[in-house]
């Protein structure tokens, strides 16, 4: 029963990791950009949630109504003012600029909020649970998983059923020809980053309700998201959810063996999959 419990809890945890990964996957798919600051942006969203909830006293989930548009705006401005300048054939500029950005965000958060761990207070939601077939499931993890499914479904729908998604795919396929169709790639990239950071906002708030956070944890979140993307296969959003679940289950099983092994077990599962299936389980595009 302990093991079944670990698997179920790990699956639910995977929903959070899929949310970390979805934004990363989206921007890689549209503009081949890997954002090293992604984890720090998740933490930034959690802190924005903290500021909103303490200032207004509203529930963290309601704070999404403010944090999501703010993060989207940050994403658009960041892309148009900074990241668009780094795109090209050379690998170094995007990598080093987003790495610098990561250090800047992390230290700006330290400056503004100190290194003390913080948590978003969600009242009864944090501890609420229900029994299902002999297992006790937390309402929050179940809700997180449901949100992850909804977000990925929404991204998938945007990508394949809307004019915006068509523009994303066209720009991703061939930037020059997309320009000939009247698509300004700088604007399209800005919108893609805005959408990615909107998802990041959701991930940050759910992270903040679930566990305590401090400015230094961004790198770890980036790594979890990255592992979910690679396990699932590049460019496949549903694969990203499966990747998140595999990572989550590996972690909870690791923790079941020895609490110190939780994170390590997740990394090892990732490395094993990298060794046997270098393109992930369900690859759609090659890197």
């Amino acid at each position: 029963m302990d093991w079944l419990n670990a698997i179920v809890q790990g699956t639910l945890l995977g929903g959070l990791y899929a949310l970390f990964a979805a934004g990363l996957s989206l921007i890689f798919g549209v503009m081949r950009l890997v954002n090293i600051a992604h984890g720090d942006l998740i933490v930034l969203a959690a802190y924005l949630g903290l500021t909103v909830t303490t200032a207004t006293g509203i529930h963290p989930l309601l704070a999404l109504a403010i944090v999501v548009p703010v993060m989207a705006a940050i994403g658009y401005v960041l892309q148009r003012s900074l990241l668009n300048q780094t795109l090209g054939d050379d690998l170094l500029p995007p990598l080093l600029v987003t790495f610098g950005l990561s250090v800047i965000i992390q230290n700006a958060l330290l400056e503004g909020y100190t290194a003390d761990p913080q948590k978003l207070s969600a009242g009864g939601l944090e501890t609420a649970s229900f029994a299902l077939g002999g297992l006790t499931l937390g309402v929050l993890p179940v809700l997180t998983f449901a949100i992850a499914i909804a977000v990925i479904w929404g991204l998938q729908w945007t990508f394949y059923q809307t004019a915006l998604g068509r523009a994303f795919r066209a720009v991703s396929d061939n930037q020059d020809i997309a320009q000939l169709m009247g698509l300004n790639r700088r604007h399209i990239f800005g919108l893609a980053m805005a959408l990615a950071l909107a998802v990041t906002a959701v991930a940050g708030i759910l992270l903040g309700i679930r566990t305590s956070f401090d400015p230094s944890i961004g790198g770890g979140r980036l790594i979890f998201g990255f592992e979910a993307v690679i396990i699932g296969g590049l460019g496949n959003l549903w694969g990203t959810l499966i990747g998140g679940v595999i990572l989550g289950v590996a972690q909870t099983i690791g923790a079941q063996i020895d609490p110190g092994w939780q994170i390590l077990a997740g990394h090892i599962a990732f490395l094993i999959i990298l060794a046997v299936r270098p393109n992930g389980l369900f690859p759609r595009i090659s890197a």
Partner: protein
Amino acid sequence: MPDAILSMTGLDAHYGDFQALYGVDMHVDAGEVLAIIGANGAGKTTLMRSITGLLKNGPGQISHDGADIGGLRADEIALRGIAMVPEGRQLFPSLSVKENLMIGAQVGRKGPWDLDAVYKLFPILDERKDQQSTSLSGGQQQMVAIGRALMSNPDLILFDEISLGLAPVIIKDIYRALPGIIGEGMSAIIVEQDITKALSVSSRVYCLQEGRVSLEGGSDQISREEISRAYFGIE
């Protein structure tokens, strides 16, 4: 002289240190079909890239409808009503046939061309509309590329080497469809290596040679001899 919809004055183009066009003067009149011929490397594709803004050019070198478009971005030029059927078709592989056509309509210009009109012109595309564009034959892909350009309801459409890599019978089909496409008050530039084809559909022709205009005239007035001299530079 009727009003020119597009005119180039002293157009230069560079790829890094390499100069591909030298002071090209050219104009397209409203409603006319212009042919541009020339050997490989004469600068035809460079000229297309300059007109559409894929290659940066200086202000004052190209004007469209009387307004200077030199220095505009490609998407801004597309919004003004210049569309291109690029060499090698260059469809979006991750978009279906229908989506490829619809992306052409993204500029939002009003006009006679919509999905129904394109399907009427090329009925096969209606049957194949949900397929990935890459699963089509070369000729069908060319139809999608033409339809995609038409969907933006341009007033000037550029055809870059549309017969390249296609079977003769398909080239014949496409050229047969051209007059119906270019009607409706649209102007066109046709870039071709196949001189006979180019002359048969155009009213005027320019020949490029090593980045310069080497011949200009009415398509039915200039002689074979003049063309081969302008084409190959043989005196």
